[in-house]
């Protein structure tokens, strides 16, 4: 198992709690006696009992049978380091988890950790954000316990002008994770929103620290509406939004979704580092399917309408305006007409 838990920040799962869960998971069908737990963890039987009690308060169903011991019956859908790292087999992404019950913004935390030298593959996750952000200071609605808010630190050995290519990695990874954990058919809206039935389920925002000659790090910010209910969406959203639950009619296990996402991202990142950008761009283009469409692009204080005649190497939209000019679009809100 990879992914060292960062217990000091978690607030919800202390070191021994995580170790007890790991011991249970090594014997998924059997019992672990209080004596074994006490011996393996090097703590008293009373302390073991206190930790079991704490885990139960977090929602873990732990059965206790005299003379047999304790058994994990069911785990709550928590986004803790112990849950996320369980069974995750990745090369780079998820080497370390930093989990919060609530934070201002996972991108903000990840950026700060990266500045302080956090290693590549560090994943920052929060159950809730009180200042979740989108592009240009926009707010990202982040209610507790239902969605995914995470930010991943990578340190690719690339030149800064190639970094916009990374936008495709997360978009494709989210689309793959949605396909894997639901029966839904996700689409990518240029450049990297993920839509289901025309409504937004995921928003991605990447932030880079770079110098002229190299990238220090990139924070891949990923917000996915997983089990959010209708009444949890604000009325004044810029674009129609939805959740995997609302579209599929079924709750989706968040920890399972996160592992699928991190696994997909890890594979794509490995491919990218080994010269596979063209293949990733190809998958993104297929999922995005914007060429030939009539779109309107609103940007800053103006709106342009035209036909997408292509997507250039870095992914910019080539928009043919009514007067025949072709405008290169690198940023903006795109609506397919």
């Amino acid at each position, binding site marked *: 198992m990879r992914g060292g838990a960062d217990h000091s920040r978690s607030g919800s799962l202390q070191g021994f709690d995580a170790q007890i869960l790991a011991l249970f998971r090594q014997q998924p069908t059997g019992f672990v006696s209080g004596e074994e737990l006490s011996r393996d963890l090097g703590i008293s039987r009373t302390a073991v009992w206190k930790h079991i009690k704490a885990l139960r308060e977090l929602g873990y169903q732990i059965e206790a049978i005299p003379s047999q011991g304790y058994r994990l019956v069911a785990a709550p859908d928590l986004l803790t380091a112990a849950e996320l790292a369980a069974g995750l087999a990745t090369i780079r992404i998820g080497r370390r988890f930093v989990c919060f019950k609530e934070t201002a913004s996972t991108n903000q935390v990840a950026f700060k950790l990266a500045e302080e030298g956090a290693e590549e593959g560090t994943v920052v996750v929060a159950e809730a954000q009180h200042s979740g952000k989108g*592009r240009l*200071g926009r707010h990202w609605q982040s209610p507790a316990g239902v969605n995914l808010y995470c930010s991943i630190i990578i340190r690719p050995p690339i030149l800064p002008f190639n970094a*916009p290519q990374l936008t495709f990695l997360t978009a494709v990874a989210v689309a793959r994770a949605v396909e894997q954990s639901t029966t839904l058919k996700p689409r990518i809206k240029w*450049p990297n929103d993920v839509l289901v039935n025309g409504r937004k389920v995921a928003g991605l925002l990447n932030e880079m620290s770079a110098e002229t*000659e190299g990238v220090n790090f990139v924070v891949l910010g990923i917000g996915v509406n997983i089990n959010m209910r209708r009444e949890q969406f604000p009325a004044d959203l810029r674009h129609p939004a939805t959740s995997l639950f609302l579209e599929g009619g079924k709750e989706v296990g968040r920890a399972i979704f996160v592992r699928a996402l991190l696994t997909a991202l890890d594979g794509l990142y490995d491919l990218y580092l080994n010269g596979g950008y063209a293949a990733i761009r190809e998958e993104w283009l297929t999922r995005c399917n914007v060429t030939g469409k009539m779109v309107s692009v609103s940007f800053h204080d103006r709106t342009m309408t035209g036909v997408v005649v292509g997507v250039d190497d870095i992914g910019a939209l080539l928009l043919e305006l009514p007067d025949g000019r072709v405008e290169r679009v690198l*940023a903006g809100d795109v609506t397919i007409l």
Partner: protein
Amino acid sequence: MDIKDLKSLIKMVTETDISEFELENSEEKIRIKRGGAPEVVHYSAPQQVYAMPQGAPQFAAPAMQAAPGAAEAPAVEEKGKAITSPIVGTFYHAPAPDAPPYVTVGQVVEKGQVLCIVEAMKLMNEIEAEFRCKILKLCKENAHPVEYGDPLFIVEPL
């Protein structure tokens, strides 16, 4: 015009009684203004357009060689050093449309302070000052496109 020529031009102008001097040709425009306030040099560099590299990502060697075509920083730490854009994108002078700008002309900024954001494909690149400096000029308008290597600011290293 290189920094050395600019320096001798400033020297020449300041040795006379001229209060304002302007020179313009097809490539650049130089304006030197004198008065009660400290001298201000406005320098509009020509639009530099670099071709984007095509194809697969170019990996930097472990030693991180300089980006091809990157604007050469003047060796002499003099008035009028350009801070250039490391990526093609859109320039923003503030973190949000209704927020105050990161920096204004005349402001002294510390090393590591954020000067602006350049966005490309939902990748936000905060451009930081790599040294303590004074902002002499903002080269780009808010929400306007920038090319790779375009000057974003002219600063005076302090």
